[in-house]
């Protein structure tokens, strides 16, 4: 799009995104989502005009003869006649509708093309795999030892194009971060993808947008768009293995974690816990939420989640395991070290 058009649109866009929340299609903080706002407003304008014409026609038609006060009977000889003006009006109306719809189709085409243009530059690559009801996030690099694996949270450097490959381990999910882009389904047995180009920094929220079972509502993810240096720092930290526990309480928690049920589902790099069924917990304490957006991450919620995940997210795949209070304390202490 031309620079003038950019400027004309930037001002109201800036206004809209300032008002919009962090899971909002009017945010426009990515290339695709910004294009959405423009296209939506174009459609809204043309559709509003058509609608007002219909209402005007209806209003005038109803007001016209009501005042005439004529006899309310059928004119048996002329009830099928139509004036020549009406025939002309039909042609004009058909032309108007066709022109309006053509404008919209063309606008849609240009918007689509602009979205596709971002694929030409190369940048970051991610693979996100959907599960009931959490997101597995893998940063794809040519060197496997430089690949970060995390869950339910994505960090992205601003202004760097991102190619996200989408897969599913079970049922159909849909990846949707409205502030950045439209959605794309994750379909088992197929691979789909989505291009993201975040243009503004911020903390955004995404949510699964295809009904995927009992806890579809609680399958959210946090998307943090930050300056490149901050991103690199985050990435390096995520690559590191988990620090060893230091206090007695933390060590007790570590022992519980690697010897009991936890390690059969969860992975903590640098420890014997290597379960691949559930989210990777190596740096769980650095994330913003627990349970794919179910609870904000803090000590109290960690207690509540570990003690009884089923009461917060009934039907989720993490069973409620009865445990002694001292085990709970030690586990939380250990989990808090996993930054």
């Amino acid at each position, binding site marked *: 799009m031309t620079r003038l058009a950019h400027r004309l649109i930037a001002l109201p866009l800036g206004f809209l995104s300032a008002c919009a929340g962090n899971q909002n299609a009017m945010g426009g903080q990515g290339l695709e989502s910004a294009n*959405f706002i423009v296209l939506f407003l174009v459609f809204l304008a043309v559709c509003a005009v058509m609608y007002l014409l219909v209402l005007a026609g209806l209003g005038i038609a109803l007001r016209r003869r009501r005042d005439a006060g004529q006899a309310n009977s059928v004119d048996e000889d002329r009830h099928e006649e139509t004036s020549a003006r009406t025939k002309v009006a039909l042609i004009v*109306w058909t032309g108007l509708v066709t022109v309006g719809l053509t404008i919209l189709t063309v606008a849609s085409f240009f918007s689509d093309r602009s979205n596709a243009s971002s694929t030409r530059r190369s940048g970051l690559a991610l693979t996100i795999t959907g599960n009931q009801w959490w997101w597995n996030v893998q940063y794809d690099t040519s060197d496997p030892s430089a690949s970060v694996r995390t869950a339910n949270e994505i960090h992205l450097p601003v202004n760097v194009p991102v190619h996200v490959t989408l897969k599913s381990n079970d049922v159909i999910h849909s990846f949707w971060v409205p502030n950045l882009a439209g959605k794309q*389904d994750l379909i088992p047995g197929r691979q789909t993808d989505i291009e993201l180009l975040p243009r503004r920094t911020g903390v955004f929220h995404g949510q699964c947008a295809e009904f995927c079972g009992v806890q579809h509502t609680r399958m959210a993810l946090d998307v943090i768009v930050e300056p490149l240096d901050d991103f690199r720092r985050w990435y390096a930290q995520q690559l590191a293995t988990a620090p060893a526990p230091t206090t007695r309480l933390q060590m007790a928690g570590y022992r519980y974690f690697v010897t009991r049920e936890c390690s059969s589902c969860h992975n903590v790099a640098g420890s014997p816990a290597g379960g691949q069924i559930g989210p990777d917990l190596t740096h769980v304490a650095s994330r913003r939420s627990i349970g794919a957006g179910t609870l904000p991450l803090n000590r109290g919620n960690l207690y509540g989640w570990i003690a009884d995940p089923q009461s917060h997210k009934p039907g989720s795949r993490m069973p409620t395991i009865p445990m002694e209070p001292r085990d709970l304390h030690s586990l939380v202490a250990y989990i808090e070290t996993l930054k």
Partner: protein
Amino acid sequence: MSSALEKAKAPPADVPRDGPGLSGPVLEARLARTWGRPRGLIGWLSSVDHKDIGRRYIVTALTFLALAGALALIMRLQLAKPENDLVGAARYNEIFTMHGTTMMFLFAVPVMQGVQIYLTPLMIGTRAMAFPRLTAVSFYLYLAGGCLLWVAFILNIAPDIGWFAYPPLSGPQYGVGKRPDIWAQMVTFTEVASLAAAVTLIATILKQRAPGMSLARMPLYVWTTLVTSLMVVFSMPAVALASSLLLSDRLVGTHFYNPAEGGDALLWQHLFWFFGHPEVYIIFLPATGFVSEIVATFSRRSIVFYPVVVLSVVATGILAFGLWVHHMFATGLPRVGYSFYTAASISVSIPTALQIFCWIATLWEGRPRLQVPLLYVIGFIITFVIGGLTGVMIAAVPLDLQLHDTYFIVAHFHYVLIGGAVFPLLGAITYWFPKFTGRMMSEKIGKLGFWMLFLGFQLAFFPMHVAGIYGMPRRVYTYPAGMGLEWPNLLSSLGSLVVALAVLLFVLNMVRSALGGRRAAANPWDGSSLEWATQSPPADYNFAHIPVVESRAPLWGSRDHLPVVHGLRVDDRELLLTTVMDAVPDVREPSAQPSPWPFISSVAISVMFIGSILSPWALVVGAIPATIAMAAWFWPKGPPELEPTIS
């Protein structure tokens, strides 16, 4: 020469026939005996009168509307505030599945077909449907499917996979228990019922129109009935196949939708939406038929540009089959293919825009009377067009990718379904109520109910556009605070209460008027079509003599007399077949007498279908009694007659 040939060449038998020698009250008494419905419970179950079956369809469908509406209220109460705990996750998923499934399969299509079954023979000037017993089976199977679903709900095994039941969520691995099987088999019941009704309607319209009612003189409502019945014939097999393949995956281990063994989850989506998109036009086009009839009568003139309206209905019906991929824009299919579906989805609005022009032009050139049926038409235009325009928006892929699976879509389809189908339906019920019952509905209560419904609807559903844009996905049992969703949801919930009250008021008006409303003459609104030439309510035989039609508006052409043909039998059920294009009288056709075999066959078929939820062998075993019952239905009873009868 065989005796069959002798009989074929024999002159007409010497039996009593209607005509100048036999007419008036004497004829009507004999016709009433011939066409009467038998008494008692067996009699009720044996009825093949299309008016009975149409009424049963409508009452059953309105009951399901109320049940699904109650579920909607529960959902709205749960969503009225963030992080509400009125309804838990699992129960909520059952509720929205039941709401959508009931509305789409048990209310919207059946109510439209029910009205079609009631009105079509009256509007085309005949005495019965083409296959009266098949029509009866259609109703019983529909009722059985609805009961299956709701009994499951009461027994706490309701489906919880959404009304669209996507695999693998609905498949054998993730759809645990029998819930998806119940859903899939309910679909089997209702689509068999719907297909049977559609075939009957097509045959009736093509072959039983009154002499002189060429295709170009058919009422617009009959055109919409013909087009939607053809759409049913071509689209319902898709959902029948899809649900059968799903049942097969679940029951006997096939792999149609299992990607691990060569199947594809998207196969379901293609098959389902190939049905699902035409389905919404199957619901909408009959509503446009209602609108055309009401606008003409209440503008005191014929619809402007009848050929344009007919062509628009036909074009919409055909185009509707080329749009289904717009439900799949987020599934990663090739973008180039998507452009075709965007263009098609946008262009399908052009014929509808033409119909809207014709309706407004008719009001403009006519003398509109603002009574309740016309109020609903006005409400329809104001509301439906918004839904149509949001539809144009989501036809564009970049817009759809943001708005798909959000409350924006929920707003869109309620605007087109409630605005586009329910408003005209309520107007139609008010309009034809005197014909159905012989009494008028209260105009005052009707006006109050209309305004409550119209305003309540806007309050309930407009904020959903905002909720969707503000990030609220579909099918969620709650949402977090702080996203800006509190106000839209609260307003929607308040609006839904107003809508519920308005519907209740409409139903109360119906009941009160049916029991003691002002008595209606044959043609209280001065309509132009043939149904207004019958009594209110019509006699069992509809018309004492089959009418002849000389124009598109037969009752406005001849005010004091009705041209008719005569010579049909009086003591046996007989109606007239005419030629397809120009309705020239052709054959005297016997019409089926009441029989309990349709009901018995339906019971046998129901046992077969419901049994197959538990075991595939039920299909084999259950087919035996079903076959016997259907053979008994077909087998002539009693000795051969002078002229044929169907007993």
